[in-house]
């Protein structure tokens, strides 16, 4: 496999990075990087880490990082996690910034401890901390419950003070969304499966409306809704499918959500290099974070009508002749 860390890869311009990923030869990994400057979204870091954990350390060939921003990858724990030796020296007095380094989560109890420990690292306001905790919990539990990923979930986050944005990335190398969704629903492509996973009330654990006693099929819809009302990016990459919720330009006074993710302003594709699992990225602009309570009102209305519409569509019609 080959993965290249470019000059810049954030959710708005992540597509070329994803399209350059080479999944062939899964027993080895070659990591290359831009020589001048590397600035990437936590989703990219989580993906590299998740990929690296699928091969033996001795089979990872990592180009010597020359970019001036190379210390960032040490701080985020990439080389340490992958067991790669690095000669990059960090200045002791350099500010640590507000970030969550790459973290591997393999069990529910680990996740609970992680959530309580991560909030102080980012110095967030209570409302913002709540939103972050919600996102991390739902995304990581999805991995633990559905992905069948031997290495669990790899996640990290970074706060960008200039833009006041919190960026979160999580990746796994499990079975992928299509494999999970296809247990109960028909999905012709990875992108179609991602679309179903983002639809409220659709879960791979059952085709029954309302889900099972343990799964409702609402977690990703909630997260897409958080990004949508905050007018932020949200991306899901699984198999060959990429769904990217695009930033909305104008603020609305009322919150309006779409149950069908393809009705949201989005981009993506169904023919990307096959990612062996699922990777998710989200941006949260903190100074425009909608009050969570208002968001819940909109979710309640959208969710309820989506369920009713699906039930109505399944109703048998009388035949008249």
């Amino acid at each position, binding site marked *: 496999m080959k993965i290249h860390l470019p000059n810049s890869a954030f959710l708005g311009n992540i597509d070329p990075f994803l399209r350059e990923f080479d999944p062939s030869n899964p027993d080895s990994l070659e990591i290359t990087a831009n020589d001048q400057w590397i600035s990437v979204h936590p989703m990219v870091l989580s993906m590299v880490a998740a990929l690296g954990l699928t091969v033996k350390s001795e089979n990872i060939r990592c180009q010597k990082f020359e970019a001036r921003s190379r210390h960032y990858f040490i701080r985020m724990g990439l080389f340490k996690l992958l067991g790669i030796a690095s000669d990059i020296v960090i200045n002791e007095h350099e500010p640590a910034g507000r970030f969550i380094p790459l973290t591997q989560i393999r069990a529910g109890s680990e996740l609970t401890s992680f959530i309580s420990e991560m909030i102080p690292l980012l110095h967030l306001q209570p409302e913002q901390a709540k939103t972050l905790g919600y996102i991390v*919990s739902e995304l990581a539990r999805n991995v633990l419950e559905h992905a069948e990923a031997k290495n669990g979930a790899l996640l990290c986050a970074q706060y960008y003070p200039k833009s006041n944005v919190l960026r979160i990335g999580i990746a796994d190398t499990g079975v992928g969304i299509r494999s999970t969704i296809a247990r109960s629903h028909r999905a012709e492509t990875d992108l179609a499966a991602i679309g179903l996973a983002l639809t409220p009330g659709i879960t791979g654990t059952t085709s029954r*409306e309302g889900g099972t006693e343990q799964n*409702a099929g609402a977690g990703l819809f909630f997260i897409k809704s958080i990004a949508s009302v905050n007018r932020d990016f949200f991306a899901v990459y699984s198999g060959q499918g990429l769904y990217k919720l695009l930033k909305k330009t104008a603020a609305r006074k009322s919150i309006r959500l779409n149950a069908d993710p393809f009705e949201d302003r989005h981009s993506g594709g169904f023919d990307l290099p096959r990612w062996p699992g699922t990777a998710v990225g989200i941006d949260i602009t903190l100074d425009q974070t909608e009050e969570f309570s208002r968001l819940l009102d909109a979710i309640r209305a959208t969710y309820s009508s989506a369920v009713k519409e699906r039930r109505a569509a399944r109703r048998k019609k009388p035949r008249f002749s």
Partner: protein
Amino acid sequence: MKSIRIKDHAGAFAENKDVAKALRVEELMPSLEKNEDIVLDFEGVEAATQSFIHALISDALRKRGGDALDRIGFKSCNDEVRKIISIVADYMQDSIF
């Protein structure tokens, strides 16, 4: 009447679905089977995920319909927890009937 303090089991941020499952299987459902009233006390719970609430109460709603809500009381819920419980109660009843 049985009362369960959610914070004692799930903490101030109720997100651990394994905990929700244990409460459902060991406390909530047996009480409902015996036609006992039960109170889920959310005092001190600052936030809960939809997944947690679903894992806690959806089975009761599926098996007993809206009548389950005659037996289950929700105490000391803040505005957001109250709304998440309402979302789960709504979509479960919409799904069944």
